[in-house]
């Protein structure tokens, strides 16, 4: 039996007191414990940012990669050993800025990972520059005259690119978030959760109070309905819906590689005496 304590941090946590990231990593720990996944079979992969520190705060295998490349690293991990449960944690800058290409392409591939985007609407670790999700005309350290860009719509892009599990969570609701994480972990295919994450130091405006007023929970929504999911994602109301927007079981790139891993995952194949005589034959 896996207990929450088995998943305690590798190290003391260095996030600011009150940071939304605590809620996220706790939800991850709870979900893994409740699903009874063996921590040694879980790999948490991150980029760089406050969010990037997540792997250190949950005792599983982890990879704190470079900024923007967590999803690409995760692809190599999951394709080489599909038995591992791979969880990607990115920041909003990390994923919707510098790392966007890998995100889109792997949703298209329907790579079988859980991806949690810590969306605090700011570049926190580098001290408050505008992120791709920062509101229009917001003043930040890099945009003293206002952010000239309209924010991007993560859920709409996820749906358009082909993710097969698309959800929005909120770091302030541990119970709800834990359920999303569990559902994402159990999903075969790209499970993407954009998590609204209060950053108390670098973007206090979007606080817990703010989110309490500006979110609501999806009810009576049929997550198999993609058109409706897209409509929901495009909604420009005052409140953001939380919950599972879309979910489907379709082709995943892993189907193509299934035979390779049939007996053992590729990463565990015996390579001490690969026979290449048939290939050499071709050149004779």
């Amino acid at each position: 039996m896996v207990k929450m304590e088995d998943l305690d941090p590798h190290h003391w946590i260095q996030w600011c007191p009150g940071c939304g990231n605590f809620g996220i990593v706790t939800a991850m720990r709870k979900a893994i414990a409740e699903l009874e996944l063996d921590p040694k079979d879980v790999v948490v992969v991150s980029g760089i940012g406050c969010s990037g520190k997540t792997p250190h705060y949950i005792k599983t295998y982890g990879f704190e990669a470079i900024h923007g490349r967590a999803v690409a690293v995760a692809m190599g991990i999951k394709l080489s050993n599909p038995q591992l449960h791979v969880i990607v944690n990115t920041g909003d800058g990390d994923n919707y800025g510098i790392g966007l290409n890998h995100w889109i392409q792997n949703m298209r591939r329907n790579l079988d990972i859980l991806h949690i985007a810590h969306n605090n609407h700011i570049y926190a670790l580098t001290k408050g520059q505008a992120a791709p999700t920062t509101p229009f005309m917001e003043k930040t350290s890099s945009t003293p005259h206002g952010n000239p860009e309209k924010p991007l719509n993560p859920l709409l892009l996820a749906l358009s690119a082909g993710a097969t599990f698309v959800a929005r969570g909120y770091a302030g609701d541990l119970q709800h978030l834990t359920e999303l994480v569990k559902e994402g972990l159990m999903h075969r295919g790209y499970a993407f959760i954009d998590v609204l994450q209060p950053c108390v130091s670098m973007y206090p405006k979007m606080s817990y109070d703010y989110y309490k007023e500006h979110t609501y929970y999806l009810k009576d929504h049929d997550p198999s309905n993609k058109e409706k999911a897209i409509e929901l994602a495009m909604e420009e109301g005052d409140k953001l819906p939380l919950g599972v927007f879309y979910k489907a079981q379709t082709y995943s790139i892993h189907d193509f590689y299934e035979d390779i891993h049939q007996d053992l995952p590729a990463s565990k194949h015996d390579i001490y005496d690969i026979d290449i005589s048939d290939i050499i034959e071709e050149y004779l």
Partner: protein
Amino acid sequence: MEDIAIKIGGPAGSGVMSLGKMIGKLFQMYGWYVVIYDEHPSLITGGHNISYVRASKQKIYAHRTYAHILVALDKPTIDIHKNELKKPALVVADEGIAASLDNSDILSLPLSRIANELGSLRYYNTAAFGAMAKILGARKEDVTSVIKKLFGKKGDEVVQNNEAAALKSYESIEHSYFKLEKKANKFMLIGGNDAVALGAIKAGVKYLGQYPMTPASSILSTIAKHEKSKKIVVKQTEDELAAINSIIGAAFTGARAMTATSGGGFSLMAEALGMAGMAEVPIVIIESQRGSPSTGMPTHTEQGDLRFVMHASQGEFPRVVMAPGDVEEAYYMVFEAFNIAELVQSPVIVLMDKYLSSTIQTTPIFKTDLKVDRGKLLKDDQAQNIKGYKRYEVTEDGISLRALPSQPNCMHVASSYEHDETGFTTEDSEERIRQMKKRMKKLAVIPKHIYAPRVYGSDDANIQLICWGSTKMPCLEALKILKEEDVKAKVIHYPYIVPFPYDETIEILTKPNVRNIVIEQNYLAQFRGVIREQTGIYIDETLLKYDGREITPEEIVDYVLKGD
């Protein structure tokens, strides 16, 4: 006939390369040594393509500047190349071309007629092959064998039509001009990139992440062909950033992992290269250089990236840079690259170039009794009982035990940050120094003989041709020519640049009364600079070429005999 060189010219898309390969295959069947060298612009159609096939009863190492036979698949070929012809000079062309030139020295052949009879100009070059086989004095049944070998996988119809084209044109010629003697040799005929692919497959590569880029693209195609039978995850990625980052992920799980690219793609890999260094993940990167800078001359050769791969990525971390000198070495060294990568838990860069990637050579059949060595990799049964595991433990030789996800008792975080022994981020001065020292000393575990320069030629020679990577081939060929002219010379070839073989270099380069000449395919004499930086030895003679064409044995001989 001891040695024969055939140049084939024609427009891109006319099958020049494939004709070269057919002729090469024929010589291989006869036990001859073969070198096939291609030249073509970065265009799909149009532009002038060349395939140059050189065959010999004696060992040969490189292409030469002359040809005995010119096969002109179009008119311009004759003008462009007629001055390269050497006795017995023979020009072979379709009757259409021959007629239009009104040149009775041209051997006129009904190639297009035969192709058209078979319903497609696609058979034009196979027809040319049949004719060449006859001209060379090969037996009919061998023509058939070559066609079967090369087209077998494309289905019976393709084989039959090609066979028909070849035989018809074979028969259209009355007599052979040469007599192709059979030798007892049994060779492989294989190109540099395929040798890389084989070396990697033999080494147990389990994940290839690659984005296509000339001249490395065919490594992807070749390994992909065997993805199912050899159970390799082959992933064409969205870009080179994904390629290298995904192989780092793959290697982290324990899969032997590789990527291949050219300089432009390698540029995009610079950042993650440093991550592999910092997180101590063993990966193999094939970098096949081409004409540069920037997009440059994509289908031409160069050795302009040496310094770049030596220093790519911010900061300092251990890496190995090796550069095979010919097709055979490409196989063995790529195999070795995987062992070394795991031995030192660091990135290994295999520096190729367009010349080596695409040159096809006869080589002794590759040995397959090679030993895989995974270094300090934790075994599953060891993991069961391990206590207090530390991924980045500071050890005597700097190398720590490497545990893999799913092994019990070893959970840790691999990190691109500076970290302590457990993997946790640190900015502490002493921890930092310990980890830097630990990493930087790792290369010392590589046995010295592995990266020592190789010396070819007479012991008592006082001319030393110093080269690295693919220029070994023309240098060795030049050595042969010089010997014929009674000039004693040596080739000093560096298959490794990093680690740098300091002791041997001092010994070899400071011999009294030697004339050292550095031969490289670049403008700045980068390797000369490396030698000087490492040893203080300044070699004032250089033979440099940077026009995208491989230096020829003739150029080397000329330089040696006359100076610059």
